[in-house]
């Protein structure tokens, strides 16, 4: 665990803790909506990877952009989205971020710079790099972070766009969330050699970091974002993390690809929230009681948002052919 710098960071730390708890709570509620058959379709849980999204997004402003993945609720929350609009979107309601047209795998929240989750694995790498190209051409100083999983490193698009990003020094950070599994297959079975070495081959500075340590992730990202703004991008980060659930909700019989002991080990010994909580308490930044109160508050927010979304209206059928084309 990286050392807390000073008490002036208290606010930042508590916000990071709160954002991680918000993600975990959102996912617990989303999972319940699925389990109780109240949610159409299915979804991919971010639980376990909270420190990645929060550590990175807390280093960004609303002007900075991110692109997200099918496992994107965490990025969306971390980038500033509201529970109410997110749950509405998950349930296909008209007040959802995308008016119920995108669903779990396509939530976009432009007001906070989230260019959207993408259900094509690796599909947003071009978009993120293009956003960075626009920033450079316009002379804007925003940075774009491209979230993707270890599975997406097998897509050719990644190498095409990293090549161009490196050639043109674009302000983009490629954040590879290596949770150990490419769908139902161990990453070591789909990735030859080193993942960071692939970025390094293009001359991109690459880092490998513990994705369960929110402060470490945040520190590194802050430095890289600052360097991006100075024209020193792009960068590549491989974040070692773990997804607690299966590839998707409903992927319950997982023992053919990973053991329950392994899951238990990550949950008990490397949980990003438990670790950061212990740190906050031991450093005297917050008491157990204060943190419990914060958890309870977040849980209540989520319960209210779920109830709101369940009662919310579906979009009118007249909206079905709206937004095919922009005005």
């Amino acid at each position, binding site marked *: 665990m990286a050392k807390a710098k000073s008490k002036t960071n208290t606010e930042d730390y508590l916000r990071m803790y709160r954002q991680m708890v918000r993600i975990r709570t959102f996912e*617990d509620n989303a999972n*319940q909506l*699925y*389990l*109780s*058959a*109240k949610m159409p379709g*299915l979804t991919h849980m971010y639980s376990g990877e909270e420190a990645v999204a929060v550590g990175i997004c807390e280093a960004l402003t609303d002007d900075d952009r991110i692109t997200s993945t099918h496992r994107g609720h965490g990025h969306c929350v971390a980038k500033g989205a509201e529970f109410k609009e997110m749950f509405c979107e998950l*349930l296909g*309601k008209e007040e959802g971020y995308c008016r119920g047209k995108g669903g779990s795998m396509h939530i976009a929240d432009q007001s906070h710079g989230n260019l959207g989750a993408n259900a094509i694995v690796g599909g947003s790498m071009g978009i993120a790099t293009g956003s960075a190209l626009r920033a450079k051409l316009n002379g804007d100083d925003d940075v774009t972070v491209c979230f993707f999983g270890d599975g997406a490193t097998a897509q050719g698009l990644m190498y095409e766009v990293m090549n161009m990003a490196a050639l043109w020094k674009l302000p983009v950070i490629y954040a590879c969330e290596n949770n150990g599994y490419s769908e139902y297959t161990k990453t070591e079975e789909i990735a030859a050699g080193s993942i960071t070495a692939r970025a390094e081959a293009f001359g991109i500075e690459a880092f490998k970091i513990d994705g369960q340590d929110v402060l470490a992730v945040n520190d590194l990202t802050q430095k890289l974002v600052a360097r991006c703004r100075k024209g020193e991008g792009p960068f590549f980060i491989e974040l070692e993390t773990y997804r607690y659930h299966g590839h*998707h*909700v*409903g992927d*319950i*019989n997982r023992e053919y690809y990973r053991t329950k002991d392994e899951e238990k080990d990550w949950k008990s010994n490397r949980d990003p929230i438990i670790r950061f909580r212990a740190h906050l308490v031991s450093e005297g930044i917050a008491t157990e009681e204060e943190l419990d109160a914060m958890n309870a508050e977040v849980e209540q927010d989520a319960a209210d948002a779920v109830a709101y979304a*369940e*009662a*919310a*209206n*579906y*979009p009118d*059928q007249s909206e079905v052919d709206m937004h095919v084309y922009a005005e």
Partner: protein
Amino acid sequence: MPHDVTMPQLGMAQDAGKIVSWLKSPGDAVAKGDALFEVETDKATMEVEAQADGYLTGVSASEGDDVPVGAVIARISDSADDDTPAPAPEPSEAPDATGTSDDLPEGHSVTMPQLGMAQDTGLLVSWHKSPGDEVAAADILFEVETDKSTMEVEAGRDGFLAATLAEAGEDVPVGNPVAIISDTAPATPVARAQSAATPPPAKPVPDNAKEPAPKSDKPASAPRPAAPAPRASGDRILASPKTRRLALEQGLDLARLAEASYPQPYHAADIETLRALPDPATAPQGAVAAARRLTAETTQDGLPDFFAWAAEAHGLTDADALLAGLAATSLATKGPVAVERFGPSKTFAIASRSLAQVTETEDTPVLLLRDLRASRLSAVDMGAEDTPVLTLMATGKGVSITLECAPAQMDAATAIQLITDFAGRVEDPIRHLL
């Protein structure tokens, strides 16, 4: 506030789960994350964790039960003695293929039969047997009415009428069970209305959420096409959609083009020709009009064999008389008919259907039969003459027959009837004798 414990949706296409075992007992204290019960789906067995802290209460599903996804099976309450029961889960299985469910007697189901081509339901008019009656396979079980008719439905097998699943007066969807016939006398025969049948459990939907309403501005039925229906006289007329529309708009009948032997398909330009055709209702008698020309072809020429047989068996040696007889009987007036073969012609009168009673006559013929089967002619287009003309020509193994006449000499129906009958007789003259 008590927290519902529901059967979770686990797999991607799973409707229900079987409770393998409860890992906690009613009244036990549970903590969030504790394993509550074990569920088996088609894929795997898995432990389901408590989602709240509290006490397990209101357990309403037992080990071994199949419970639909989303059904509440217990509660986690703030106190161990909360005795509000969770609602009993509905059975997850829809009635099985034999139409029985747990409170129905076992046996073979009799379903509402599909009677018409496009029939969805049948009205159960009356039962001929009562629940508990012994029935034989051929016994009438009940009566059904569709839009077309009323029909009696047989039991189909021997046994006992164990249950009736619809009442007289009810519309029953085709294929739905209406009765159960058991092999042994039922202990408690059942009589039930169809409307009492429970629908299969639907996926739960939050009842406070608005369901999308179906669009109401759809037309109730497809608009009827504006094209005129094809005429019943003869085959479908080939005409372009535009031609049909113009004909309809102008009150013209495309069949008249066909009757006047204009080649199909018809296009818009043919509407002008159609307009120029005399209206059969108003055309002045004797006015010069375009000729009718009808052509028929037979697959074989039955005449030579027929003539040989008539000569040998009956001593009828005048082929021309026989030919005239075959043609004359196709006419309402029965003749007289003239037969012409390369120039000279003879006219015949026929007294009855018998070909033995055909005699030569000096009367004016009403039909001229021009037999050109021995020529190399393959088609004629001579226009109308004083008398309608039937021309016979050889074509391959068969005979090509052309009827030409002025519209005033013969109306379309008569012309079609004549050539059709005559062609049939040429192809198979024996038919004439039947």
